[in-house]
């Protein structure tokens, strides 16, 4: 500490230590904040199976399932001061019924996803200038916006059309839609929706839809 340079080095070194400890405390404090995500409804509204190609240049034709759905959910308790964004995604799952193999294999494909930013990371959201201004106004400077995470979408067209490695998905039975989330914090570990309650973090209520089937391939009316 005898000259300015050594004082600079020592202060900076202790600063990084303090910053690291503060970040650890912030990440651990997350555990004390209760999480109670819940789904009101998740149901497929319109299911079709169409024939298509993986790429415009592919010669193979495959069957794709287009699953439109409605989703009502409340994920607002996932948004704390340490939440940067929440990644919500809906998957369609069904068990593999191939007779030659174990029936333990589950097919899981994402049909829709969305990034919900918290006000502290709105400047990172993929929005144009007009939408961004509207968002800033509706947030009105709050650090936690209670409306974030409250989803209400009706008859949503899926982002992704799903298929099976064999290329055939028509007539698949026992398909369910699952709502999943991934909380991405500013500091700390990534966490996903959990299967069991963990102290103050509860598992998501009613995150699975009723069973439905994928129909036959849609015939073009000529």
């Amino acid at each position, binding site marked *: 500490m*005898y000259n*300015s340079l050594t004082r*600079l080095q020592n202060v900076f070194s202790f*600063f990084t230590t*303090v910053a690291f400890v503060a970040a650890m*405390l912030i990440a651990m404090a997350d555990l004390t904040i209760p999480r109670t995500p819940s789904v009101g409804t998740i149901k497929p509204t319109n299911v079709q199976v169409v024939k298509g190609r993986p790429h415009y240049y592919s010669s193979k034709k495959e069957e794709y399932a287009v699953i439109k759905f409605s989703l009502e959910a409340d994920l607002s308790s996932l948004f704390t*001061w340490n939440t940067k964004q929440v990644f919500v995604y809906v998957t369609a799952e069904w068990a593999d019924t191939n007779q030659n193999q174990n029936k333990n294999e589950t097919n899981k494909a994402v049909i829709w996803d969305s990034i919900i930013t918290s006000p502290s990371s709105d400047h990172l959201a993929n929005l144009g200038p007009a939408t961004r201004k509207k968002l800033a106004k509706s947030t009105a400077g709050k650090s*936690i916006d209670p409306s974030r995470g409250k989803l209400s979408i009706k008859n949503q067209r899926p982002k992704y059309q799903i298929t099976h490695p064999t290329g055939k998905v028509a007539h698949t039975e026992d398909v369910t839609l699952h709502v999943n989330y991934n909380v991405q914090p500013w500091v700390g570990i990534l966490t996903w929706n959990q299967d069991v309650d963990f102290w103050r973090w509860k598992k998501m209520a009613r995150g699975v839809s009723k069973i439905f089937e994928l129909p036959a391939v849609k015939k073009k009316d000529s």
Partner: protein
Amino acid sequence: MADQLLEQARDVVDGQIDFEGQKLAEVLQNVLLSVVGAVSFFVGFFLQDITLALKIGLAGTVLTFLAIVPPWPFFKQHPVVWLPVAGSSVSASHQNIVIDEKMLSQQ
């Protein structure tokens, strides 16, 4: 002449402080940065605002740098008193000290 200027410049950039000042700097660094860290965490936690926590932390750190790195006068309150060279009664500051055959005079 250039030597003298260089010497002065070096003293300013060097920023040497006495031993009591160094002890003070160490204590001040630990106290200031710990307080800044604690305040930024608790304010952020109770107001649930992480950008505020970050701003408080960085602002407090900058203030700490400003308080400790420059050689302020309060770090030089206890300068080292050098004893006279053995055998003479004149204090060291008025003697010519020879080191490695180069004559250095301290005034």
